């Protein structure tokens, strides 16, 4: 999970390693993910999102499809 300066930099990184390019996430989307995962992490009752909750969080950001499905079996 890395930062990249541009889409072109992501493409070059993936091509050099023979990887498929994955969906890109903006800094604003990433902030929402960071808040959702971690804003209660130092508190007694914190917990990680469950799979259904993860799907809803991702979908709310427009991150949909098998890649973002925590229970997908499309990537065996």
């Amino acid at each position: 999970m890395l930062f990249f300066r541009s889409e072109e930099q992501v493409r070059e990184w993936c091509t050099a390693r023979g990887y498929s390019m994955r969906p890109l996430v903006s800094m604003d989307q990433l902030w929402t993910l960071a808040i959702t995962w971690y804003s209660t992490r130092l508190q007694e009752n914190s917990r990680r999102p469950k799979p259904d909750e993860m799907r809803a969080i991702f979908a709310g950001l427009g991150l949909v499809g098998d890649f973002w499905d925590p229970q997908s079996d499309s990537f065996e």
Partner: protein
Amino acid sequence: MDFDTQIKLAVYGHFAETGRRPSPDEVAKLAGSDVGSVLDAYARLRAQRVLVLEADGSSIRMAPPFSGVPTQHVVMVGGKEYFANCAWDALGIPAALHQPGEVHSRCGQSGEPLHLEVDFEGPEPSAWLFHCLVPAAKWWDDIVFT
């Protein structure tokens, strides 16, 4: 509060206070317990995906968003230096601490430095991107690689 939660809060509290991972002995003292009981709790917290341990089974590699080892993602909050496990966790540290911070990282391809200010509302406007190679269903197959 149950014992595992006490241990989790001791670990995370130490990271928040110091930016560094605690030893099992330090956690035992913080929790008023013993090292054996702490290590048993570590194993259970690993199963809950709250901690990631080194191969020795006792050193904390990750207490997400905090990294127990230096990484390319450095986050400054309140004058303290923290290491994040990944780009996501780099924003996760100010989010977890509920304080403004500054993320120092780099482009995964070019190495161009990234300096990103983060306040209570989120990061400053930026065209930088986040890319995750591993599908969500596989993140914890090898979370260090992810």
